[in-house]
Every structure is written in structure tokens, then in C-alpha cells.
């Protein structure tokens, strides 16, 4: 069977662990990764716990297809109660760590309590030990990975760790694995830091079996061929996700200068083409593309910064290649803050990976700070003397590093846009939902996207729904609620499989189902997965309701509701959330105040 059937439950307070059998009833209902991890979280903690207290749990979860030969099989998710906003947090990541964890024999690692001093977990198949992390506490992710491998003289260890941002409780700190892949959002890294857990280092030699290997191999050959021949896949391989930037610019959905505008005049200096251009000195930002485990797309960018660029001219330690710009990073460090210096963006990206932070939340928080600065609500006295104006590349790179290291004004920026804007008396400037910052899509031009943002269970997130086709079709709020709800359920199931959502350029739910059916016991159909997705969505919703969220939190910032899109193909439109939300609740089988009805819960087996 393709689940390993084992959960590693670690009590950090006591420094003990136990390997439990995986609850297969839950696996059948919640699949894996996001769904199964959420089920374990819900069963493990009180939704009202302080996210940074020892009472919170932190779960690393793989899916049934993680580690198999299915394309993009490297995914794992980190699930916890998030410190950015107190909602259920689930951030998934690629790289090689997730598959290695599964090869060691564990579907989930569930961490409870808080270690008395900094430690890391060393896992080599059945051998599990708590190791002293004092020598690397205060060190970056990059140093941590190198140090741990050297310490154990084992270059085969795959490592997920936090940087200083996670240690110090930056509310959007990430868990970084394999140097530059991130369980990026919602502050899962800060929870890890609060538990005094610096890293998990793992080596697995057990492998993964599937239920029907022959059929599985046939099926993955077919699904991989579909992906290989798909034009969206080719685009991601050749140009990365940042090819999106030009499209959003032309459409007028590229949030610019804290969402005051929807198009950015400097877009062509930070988009995929700009990464691929060779400049006068012969330098090209992009070096090559690379893949996560098992992935036949390889959208990942490897880039480098010009050695004479102001960020690194005197810092030789950055004269090397590393993870380059993806769309969200390019958006958050480019248009969102008005910066068009691609090397500055790339350096800020390095800072996110090295110190472990979410580029979306950092960039959008910085954008709010820049707006506050320009309107006079904060001054150089607050910002350590940095001129925090839109377009200032140095402000971007300096603040990225300060926040990563939790220094000076970085300590304020590290609290997120909502707290920042409230602190300085302008809560309306925070571009967040439920306290989490928006990704790079403006909700006025993309109505269904807006509804998806408003109802996403982890706060504003672009990866929880897919309504592009309908949003492109017309600017009306009509007919958006259905596709939004359906895609939320679909993606919840996909996020629970162990595969990457980027395959949806070529695969629908049936392609997921056919692979799961060959890999797992029992019969797995698209309908079964959609129902599991709906169950997962409602489980997350119930957690948030119990944590204190209400339907009043299913909303968007006033800027998107009241200020028409100033330019673009959807010029003049508003987010019009109130014309979609009631229909959405209705389709979900929720009451007018956004609570699942008894019938809905019974139908999904959640009562």
C-alpha cells in the first residue's frame, strides 16, 4: 500500500516519541497531506490555543502519491494553527524532503509540546534522535543544512529547517527544505521556532510500494505524456511561473504599490523575459530550470545576481547561484512595492530562503509600510533611517534582510501587514484577508479570485481555488460562486494527494483519481476525491469557526470593494463580493452566517 501506515508522534517537551499506526479510516476519508494532516491537527489541539504556545501541534504530512513515480510526487505539507492569523495553516512544499521522509517510513510526523532547549530531529529510518541545536540556533537555513550534514558526515540527509525569522517568531516565517523550497505561507516556521525545533533531518531507505504496480506504471506513463504535450506545461518549463506577470499586467490584475494600481510600468524589467535577457555586461539573471522530486515540469528557476550589484558587490558569500524568482516573489518584490531592479528582487528572494520567510507576506507588508511612509504615518525615525518609498530597491533588500534577522524595523514588518497598519492607525491599508496577505492577483479584475480569497480557510491565498476561465469570460459576479466552490473542493483533494497543483494545466480530478486508484487500496474515483475535498474544506472551516472566526471575516479590504480598478481590461470594476458570497454559502450548504448546516455535516460524515 502506498501509505506507509506509520505516524511518528514526537513529544518535544519530554524528548520522547512513539510510532503509531496510521489511522486508515481517516486516510480513506482525508486522503493524505493537507486533508489527513488537518484531520490529525483537529484531533490533536483545541482550536483556541495560542499558536505559538506548546499546546499547538505541528504536523509534517506526505500524501499517498508522495515518493512514487507519478509526476510531481515530491510534495509534503506543514499543518498547524498559524500565528499570522490564528486560522488553520497548511503550507505545502516540493524539493526532496517530503519524499525522503516517506522513504524513512512515515506518512506524518506530528510534533507536540516545546523542547526545553534548541534541538533538531535526526531520522534515519527507524533510528530517531533529538540532537542539540545550540550551535546553529541563530544561524540561517543555508548554514543549518550544511552544518547538520557535516555534523553527521552524511550528505544524503534531506533537511527542513527554519532561519532566524522562525526562531524569533516572524509571523510569516517559513519552513525551508533543500535550501530554497518553502512551506512558505501562514507562519508555519514560527510555530516550529516556538517549539525550539530548528530542523528535521531525514534519510530514508525503505521506499514506497503501490497497490497495483503494473497498472500504476501504465497510468503514470499516460499522465506524464499528457503533461509533456501540454502548452501550459511547456511554458512553465521554459519560462517558469513568472511568465504569469506579463499576462496579469496586460489584463490589469497585477497589484501595484499596495494595490493602489493594477498595472506596473516597470513590469518588463522583472518578468520572465527580463530574467532571460543578457545585459550589456553579458550577465543573465536566469541560469537554468530545475525540478522538485519526481517532477517532469521543472518550473523552478536557478538564478544569480550580478557581482557588481549594490546588494552583493562587497559580499562574496552571495556570489553563487540559488533559487530564482517565481511569479509570487516577482510580484511581491516588484509591482507590489514598485521596484523594477531584477537583481534586487533576486537578492530579496535569497533573503527569504536563507532566513526562512514568505515572500508574499513580506512584500505585501512592506508595500503597506511604504504607503504609510509616503502618507506620513511613519517616518525615518521608525524605519532605521531608511527612505521607505515605493520603488526604492535598497529599501526592499535592506528590509528583507532586517526582517529575516529580526532587527530594527524588521521586527515590526515581521508582524505582518494587519498588525503594522493597525499600529499606525490605518487598518484599511492592510491588503489581507483574515490577516494573511494577498498573492499577485487583483480581486477587482478577477471576481471569482476575490471570492476565493475571501473564503480561503488560511486567509488570502491564490492556491485554494481556480476560477481563471470564468473570470476571464466576463467581469460579472454572476456564475462565479459555483466554479469557486467546486475548484476549492477539487484543489483540497489534489493538495492531499502528494502531487503539485501545477499539473492542473494538463490534468483534471480524473487524472488524480486514476493514479490514486492504481496506487491505493479500494476504489478511487473523481467523485470520491471531490467529496473528500469538500469534507476537507468543511473540516478546515469548522476549525476556524471554533477558533473564533465568523462570516464577517469572509471579506476583502475596502480598497478592493470601494475603489474601482483604475486601468486595464476590467477598468472601473469593483470586487463585488456581496453579490457572490450568499450564493456561495448556499452552494456550500452553509447557513446565512457561514456555518455548515447539520445536513451538510451529516452528508460529509463530519457530525
Amino acid at each position, binding site marked *: 500500500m502506498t501509505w506507509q501506515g506509520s505516524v511518528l508522534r514526537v513529544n518535544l517537551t519530554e524528548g520522547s516519541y512513539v510510532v503509531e499506526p496510521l489511522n486508515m479510516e481517516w486516510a480513506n476519508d482525508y486522503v493524505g497531506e493537507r486533508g489527513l494532516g488537518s484531520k490529525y491537527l483537529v484531533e490533536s489541539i483545541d482550536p483556541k490555543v495560542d499558536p505559538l504556545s506548546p499546546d499547538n501541534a505541528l504536523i509534517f504530512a506526505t500524501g499517498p502519491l508522495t*515518493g*512514487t*513515480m507519478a509526476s510531481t510526487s515530491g510534495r509534503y505539507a506543514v499543518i498547524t494553527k498559524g500565528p499570522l492569523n490564528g486560522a488553520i495553516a497548511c503550507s505545502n512544499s516540493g524539493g*526532496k524532503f517530503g*519524499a525522503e521522509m516517506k*522513504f524513512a517510513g512515515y506518512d506524518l510526523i506530528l510534533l507536540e509540546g516545546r523542547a526545553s532547549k534548541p534541538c533538531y530531529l535526526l531520522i534515519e529510518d527507524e533510528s530517531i534522535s533529538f540532537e542539540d541545536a545550540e550551535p546553529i540556533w541563530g544561524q540561517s537555513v543555508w548554514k543549518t543544512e550544511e552544518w547538520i550534514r557535516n555534523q553527521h558526515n552524511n550528505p*544524503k540527509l534531506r533537511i527542513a529547517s527554519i532561519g532566524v525569522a522562525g526562531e524569533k517568531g516572524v509571523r510569516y516565517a517559513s519552513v525551508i527544505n*533543500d*535550501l*530554497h523550497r518553502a512551506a512558505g505561507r501562514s507562519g508555519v516556521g514560527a510555530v516550529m521556532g516556538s517549539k525550539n525545533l530548528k530542523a528535521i533531518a531525514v534519510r*530514508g*531507505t*525503505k*521506499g*514506497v*510500494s*503501490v497497490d497495483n*504496480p503494473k497498472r500504476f*506504471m501504465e497510468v503514470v506513463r499516460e499522465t*506524464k505524456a499528457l503533461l*509533456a504535450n501540454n502548452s501550459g506545461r511547456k511554458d512553465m518549463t521554459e519560462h517558469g511561473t513568472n511568465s504569469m506577470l506579463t499576462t496579469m499586467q496586460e489584463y490589469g490584475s497585477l497589484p501595484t504599490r499596495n494595490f493602489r494600481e493594477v498595472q506596473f510600468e516597470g513590469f518588463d524589467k522583472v518578468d520572465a523575459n527580463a530574467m532571460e535577457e543578457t545585459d550589456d555586461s553579458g550577465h543573465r539573471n536566469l*541560469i*537554468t*530550470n*530545475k*525540478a*522538485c*522530486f*519526481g*517532477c*517532469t515540469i*521543472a518550473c*523552478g528557476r*536557478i538564478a544569480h545576481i550580478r557581482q557588481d550589484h549594490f546588494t552583493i558587490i562587497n559580499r562574496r558569500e552571495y556570489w*553563487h*547561484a*540559488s*533559487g530564482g524568482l517565481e511569479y509570487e516573489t516577482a510580484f511581491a518584490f516588484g509591482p507590489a512595492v514598485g521596484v523594477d531592479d531584477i537583481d534586487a528582487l533576486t537578492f530579496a528572494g535569497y533573503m527569504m530562503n536563507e532566513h526562512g520567510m514568505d515572500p508574499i507576506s513580506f512584500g505585501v507588508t512592506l508595500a503597506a509600510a511604504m504607503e504609510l511612509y509616503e502618507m506620513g504615518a511613519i517616518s525615518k525615525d521608525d524605519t532605521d533611517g531608511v527612505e521607505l518609498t515605493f520603488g526604492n530597491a535598497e529599501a526592499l533588500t535592506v528590509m528583507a534582510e532586517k526582517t529575516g534577522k529580526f532587527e530594527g524595523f524588521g521586527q515590526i514588518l515581521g508582524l505582518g501587514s494587519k498588525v503594522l497598519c493597525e499600529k499606525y492607525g490605518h487598518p484599511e491599508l492592510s491588503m489581507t484577508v483574515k490577516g494573511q496577505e494577498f498573492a499577485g492577483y487583483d480581486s477587482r479584475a478577477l471576481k471569482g479570485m476575490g471570492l476565493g480569497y475571501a473564503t480561503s480557510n488560511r486567509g488570502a491565498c491564490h492556491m485554494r481555488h481556480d476560477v481563471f476561465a470564468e473570470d476571464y469570460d466576463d467581469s460579472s459576479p454572476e456564475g462565479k460562486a459555483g466554479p469557486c466552490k467546486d475548484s476549492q473542493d477539487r484543489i483540497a483533494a489534489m493538495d492531499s494527494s502528494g502531487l503539485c497543483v501545477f499539473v492542473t494545466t494538463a490534468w483534471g480530478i480524473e487524472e488524480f483519481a486514476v493514479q490514486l486508484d492504481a496506487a491505493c487500496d479500494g476504489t478511487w474515483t473523481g467523485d470520491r476525491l471531490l467529496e473528500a475535498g469538500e469534507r476537507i474544506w468543511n473540516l478546515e472551516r469548522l476549525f476556524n469557526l471554533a477558533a473564533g472566526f465568523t462570516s464577517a471575516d469572509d471579506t476583502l479590504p475596502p480598497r478592493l470593494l470601494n475603489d474601482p480598478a483604475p486601468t486595464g481590461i476590467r477598468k472601473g470594476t469593483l470586487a463585488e463580493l456581496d453579490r457572490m458570497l450568499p450564493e456561495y454559502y448556499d452552494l456550500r450548504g452553509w447557513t446565512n452566517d457561514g456555518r455548515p448546516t447539520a445536513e451538510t455535516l451529516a452528508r460529509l460524515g463530519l457530525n
Partner: protein
Amino acid sequence: MQKALHIKPELCTGCLQCELACSYEHEGLFNPSMSRIKVFEFEHGRHTVPYTCTQCAEAWCMKACPTEAIHLDTKLGAKLVVESACVGCKACTLACPFGTIEFNPVSGKVDKCDLCGGNPKCVEACPTAAITYIDADSTGYDRMRSWAERTHLEVSQ
């Protein structure tokens, strides 16, 4: 004609599909730790380099084996480990200059690339043709051709 694996690291994305395919072919499950081909990463993943046995004509592993457990498949040119004869002494692993024959602690024998009987699964699995299986006398052909082109263009400019 004899064929050989031809690896172009510049095309490799580091996805490890080759390791998955190799382990499935030889072990019946997905387990890169048992793969006979391995992909190495350098400089934050900038370089990803697949590496495996090159099937030396004069194979040091074969010569070092005291039990004659490694024999030559004359058709493929592959050096194959006869599991029943291998005693797990690891002499071959010391003799191999490239490290591409490895002890397997589960079986107590050594593992190496056997070219999958002439249909290497790593080749089939590679999404970018970074690993191909071509005529053994042509592994340098493309590189030679590109140098020829470069030299010619320089001369004719």
C-alpha cells in the same frame, strides 16, 4: 552494435525520475536509495549530474571479484552481478575507480547498473533526454560536431 548510456548533465533537471525507475525495475518499489543511477547536486542545485556505471571494457570490479560473480554480457557489454555467486566481500567496491558498484545491506550482495537487459529504464523515465542509450562509439559525436562547427565558424569568419 554495442550501446552505452550517454549522460548530458546540462539537460538534467534533477527530478530523480531515473532513480525511481531504476529502483522499481530492480527492487519492485520506488526507492531511490537502491537506485544504481544517482543524481548529484552542486551549488544550490545549479548543477544536477546523473552518474552510473560506464561499463568499462576492462572492468576492475570483475577482475577484483574473488568468486567470479561478475561476468560480461557480451551482447550488451554490461558487467552483471551473479547474485548466487556474490558473497558480499566488497572487493569490487574497492576496485571500482568510480564508486558505481555498491554494497546493498539488505541483500548482502553488491548492486550495479545492468543496462536493464538492453532497455534501460532510466532512459525511458528521463523527461528531458538527459540520459540516452546510444551506439557506444557515438557518445562523443555530438560534442565533436559542436566543436567542429565552432572551429569552422571561427576559421571562416
